[in-house]
């Protein structure tokens, strides 16, 4: 029995998808349409989206719209172990930033990635720079029985004429 293909959106991909005026909106939209995978986000991503929304409508309505379409994942005990292992490996590699703020950003990125790994998503779609530098150091970490999702940075998705016209 084959596992189905799934794609995981970081907040830096979810916001462009849901903001028509964003420069990456049509790129993300086209990419998801072409891949035809089931889309997932983590509860941290959902929380970040709700936090930054300018004029959050009735929260229940927003949650309902997103949760009907996206699989909202969260860390279980297994994901918590995976997250701890990744953070430890990054520390051993000496790539966890020393500054309090950057360190905290890395920790959040790791938790989001751990959730994706635990849920065996195939692809993780993101744009922000911190996530990019973190994932470069995670690629070679071996997590028994799990694999690291294929990271796709939005900027690396080839654009097409349709994206430019739509913008």
């Amino acid at each position, binding site marked *: 029995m084959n596992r189905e293909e799934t794609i995981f959106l970081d907040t830096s991909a979810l916001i462009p998808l*849901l903001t028509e005026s964003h420069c990456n909106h049509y790129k993300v939209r086209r990419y998801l349409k072409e891949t035809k995978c089931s889309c997932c986000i983590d509860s941290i991503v959902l929380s970040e989206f709700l936090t930054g929304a300018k004029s959050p*409508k009735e929260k229940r309505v927003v949650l309902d*719209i997103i*949760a009907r379409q996206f699989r909202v994942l*969260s860390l279980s005990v297994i994901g918590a172990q995976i997250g701890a292992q990744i953070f430890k490996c990054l520390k051993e590699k000496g790539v966890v930033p020393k500054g309090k703020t950057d360190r905290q950003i890395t920790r959040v990125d790791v938790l989001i990635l751990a959730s994706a790994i635990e849920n065996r998503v195939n692809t993780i779609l993101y744009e922000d720079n911190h996530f990019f530098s973190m994932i470069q150091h995670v690629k070679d970490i071996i997590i028994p029985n799990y694999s690291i999702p294929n990271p796709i940075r939005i900027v690396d998705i080839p654009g097409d004429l349709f994206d430019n016209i739509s913008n």
Partner: protein
Amino acid sequence: MNDVEMKTIKFKLEGKGITPDALGKGLIDFLQNIFILTEAYNSTPIGITAVENNCITVRLLVPVAFSFALFGNPNIVNSRISVNQVINSVANMNKLLASRNATMSCYDNDIEYVKYDGSSHKIPVILVDNPIKNIISLYGELVDVGGSGEANIHIKTSIQKKAITLGITKDLARQLAHKLYSNIGVQAEVSYLRGEIINGRVVGILNYAPQSLESWLEKDALPILGKEYQNVNVEDFLNTLRGGIESHE
């Protein structure tokens, strides 16, 4: 297999109804379960040397390190065989022995090591690690729902190769019945052993009903959420948020 020292082990299945004719397809299931349980504890593939007809004896060639002491212990299985396969194989073997009033003797180099009858002396499942319980959201295709006694559902997910079986109340099962072969989401209390869900129970049904992305964006998402992040620099926003810097700092 050439570099590994091998030995012969033997499984002898005895009982009134134990003949290849009487067992029929059950013989294939028996062999399959023997293979799973034996191969689970070896880093090297095993080899079958003989199936003898008088009361069905299976001889296998296994590495010398193999021990019947590990039989039925899903905590030490290798990566080729899953914990659930071991648990299911043990259950199937015990069921076969009990239903046919048969015994299975296990021989290590022709010395009888242990004998099971599936009822008073069952092949044990030794859980050295206690399963960890957790309530999680599970998503996937609903491939079965029902059951004559206890109701259950089977969900094909992205997290395990085989469909996951979860107990469910009949009320909740009825709510899911019309969603057979659709993508569903449920909240479930599950038990993990070695990273695998070994059992669980549905505690709620999630309001997950995905449609085509385009239709969802055009009809539902963009009209309501489309302007929430207009003119916001997403990277700055995320750095601020994830870095724990609040606007008043």
